[in-house]
C-alpha cells in the first residue's frame, strides 16, 4: 500500500486556543480512514488545514509525496483532494445540476470561453450516481438535509479527486439515509477513491472505516481498527469521562 496523505507535527493556534496540537496521521491508498474525536477536538480544523483554508503554525502535510505547504486551496483540489462541508453550502440561486457543474469547469479562462456546457452529461452521471436522479433540477431550498449531503458528495466527486474528506456526513440523517450513503461510499471505494471520514459519533462509522485515528484537544490519542479504538481506555475517557 502506498502512502497517499501524510500529516506530520501539524499545529494550529487561534489566539490562546490550540485547536490542533502536534498531530500525526496518514492515509494509505485504498482505505477509508475515520478521523474521530469528541466535539471541538479539532477535526474540522485539521480538514481546513489540509485544504489550505488556514496556514498551519507548524508541521507538514504531504500528498502523493508532494509538500502541500505552498499550495493554495484550488491547487490542492487540482492535485486530487476534495472535501465536503459539515453544514452543506450549496449555491442558493442554482439548481443542483448547475451547482455540480461548477466543480467540472476548467480552471482556465480560455478553455471556459471555448465551448459551452460541454460537461453536462458527465455531471448528470455523477448526480445520478449519488442518487439525485429526479432532483437535478431542484433548488437547494427544496431539498432535504440528506439530499444536500448528497449534493456535497457529488460536488467533491465532480472535481475528479483521489482523496475525499467527508465532514460529519452522517450527522442528522435517518438510518435509511445512512445505509444508502454507506453503500455509496463502499462502491466508490471499489472504484479507487480514498476517504477520510470525520465524525464525533464512533458507532456511525463502524461499518464504513478500515482504520481510525482519534483525536482530543487537537492531539492524537488512539489509532487502530474500529475494534481496537472502541476498547481503548483513552478513547473511552475522552468520550465518557471515565
Amino acid at each position, binding site marked *: 500500500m502506498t502512502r497517499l496523505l501524510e500529516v506530520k507535527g501539524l499545529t494550529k493556534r487561534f489566539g490562546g486556543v490550540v485547536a490542533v496540537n502536534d498531530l500525526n496521521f496518514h492515509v494509505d491508498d485504498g482505505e477509508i480512514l475515520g478521523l474521530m474525536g469528541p466535539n471541538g477536538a479539532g477535526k474540522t480544523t485539521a480538514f481546513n488545514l489540509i485544504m489550505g483554508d488556514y496556514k498551519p503554525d507548524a508541521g507538514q502535510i504531504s500528498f502523493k509525496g508532494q509538500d502541500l505547504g505552498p499550495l493554495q486551496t*484550488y491547487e490542492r483540489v487540482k492535485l486530487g483532494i476534495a472535501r465536503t462541508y459539515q453544514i452543506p453550502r450549496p*449555491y442558493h440561486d442554482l439548481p443542483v445540476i*448547475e451547482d455540480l457543474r461548477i466543480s467540472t469547469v476548467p*480552471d482556465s479562462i480560455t478553455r*471556459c*470561453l471555448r465551448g459551452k456546457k460541454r460537461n453536462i452529461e458527465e455531471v448528470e452521471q455523477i448526480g445520478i450516481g449519488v442518487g439525485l436522479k429526479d432532483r437535478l433540477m431542484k433548488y437547494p431550498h427544496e431539498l432535504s438535509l440528506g439530499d444536500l449531503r448528497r449534493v456535497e458528495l457529488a460536488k467533491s466527486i465532480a472535481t475528479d479527486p483521489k482523496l475525499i474528506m467527508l465532514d460529519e456526513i452522517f450527522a442528522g440523517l435517518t438510518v435509511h439515509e445512512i445505509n444508502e450513503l454507506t453503500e455509496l461510499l463502499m462502491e466508490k471505494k471499489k472504484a479507487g477513491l480514498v476517504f477520510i471520514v470525520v465524525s464525533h459519533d464512533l458507532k456511525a462509522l463502524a461499518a464504513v472505516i478500515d482504520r481510525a485515528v482519534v483525536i482530543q484537544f487537537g492531539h492524537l490519542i488512539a489509532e487502530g481498527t474500529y475494534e481496537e479504538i472502541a476498547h481503548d481506555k483513552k478513547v473511552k475517557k475522552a468520550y465518557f469521562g471515565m
Partner: protein
Amino acid sequence: MVNWITSVKSFRWWLVAIVVMMVLPFIVPPSFLRICIMANFMAIFAMSWDMMSGYTGYVSFGHPFLIGLAGYVSAMLSHQGGFQPPHIVLPLYVTMPLGIAAAVGGGMLFFLPSMRVRGPYFSLISLAFLMILSRIMIAAGAMTGGDRGLTSLPYLVTGAVNNYWLSTGIMFAVAIGLWLVARSDVGHVLKAIRMDEDVVESSGLSTYRFKRFAFILSAITAGIGGVFYTHYMGSISPAGAFDYIFLLNIIVSTVVGGMGTILGPIFGGYFITFFTESTRTLLEGAWRFMAYSLVALAIVYFRPGGFYGIVHDIAAWFRAKRRGGLQYDQVT
C-alpha cells in the same frame, strides 16, 4: 442544426433591440437622439460596473477612476496645446487606445491587490483611490487644467445622428462581447463567486483568476466608454468625471436594470438617463440630486433585483404555468 436554432433563439432579444435602435434616427428629433447618446454611454459604464460588481459581488466604487483615467490620458495627449512642453499632440487613434490601456494598467496597479483578500476591502480601496485621483488631477493643473479641466478636445465625429450611430455601435459591440462571456462558463463561475467564494475555491478553481479576468474586462469596457465619451463631449473635468453623482448614476443604472445581467444595465442606463433628463426642468440643483438620491435609495431598498428580476419572474411564472414545471433551459 439544433445548435444553430438555439443560438438564434438566444440572440432574438438582441435582434429586436438592434432593429429598434436602427429605426430610431429616422423617427425622432436630434434632441431626443442626444439623450439616447448619453444613455448609450451610461449603459456602457453600467455594463462595465456590472461585469465586476454585479457578477462577482465585489462592489466597486472606483469606476469613475477607470473611466476618468482613460478619458484624461486620451485628453491630455490629444489636447491642442495649453500646457507646457514637451508639446505632444497625438492623433486620436493613438491616444484612445492609450487611454484604455491606462484604465486597465492603473486599475490593476491600484485595485488588484485588494481583490486577493475576501470581504469589503476592494470596495473601500476603490472609493479611496477615486478620491485621491480626483485630488491629483486637480493638483496637477498644468497637465490637466486643474479644476476647470480640459476643453476643446478633438471630436471623432460631429452631429447628433453620427454620434448616435457611433455610440450605439460601440454600446452593442460591448454588450454582445460581454454577453458572450457572461453566458459562457466564466459568467457561471463569477456568479458562483458572488454566492460562495470559498466553495468555488474548493471546486478547484482559482477565484482570483476569474475575478481578475472580470476586472480586466470591466476596466477595458470602462476605458472604451471613457475615451469615446470624452471625445464626444469634447471636454473633461474633475467635476464631471469624478463626481459622486456620476458614480451614483452608474451604480443605480445597474441595480435598477438588474445586477448580474447584460440587458439589465442597458435598460437601467436608458431609464436613468431619461429619468434625470425629464426632471431637469422640474427641480433645480441640490433639490434634484436629493430627489434623485431618494428615488435611487427606494429602488435599491424595495427592488434590489431590478426590472430584469421583475420581468424574469413574470416570464418564468407564465412559462411554468404553460408547461407545468421547470425545464432545464429555463433555469440556466
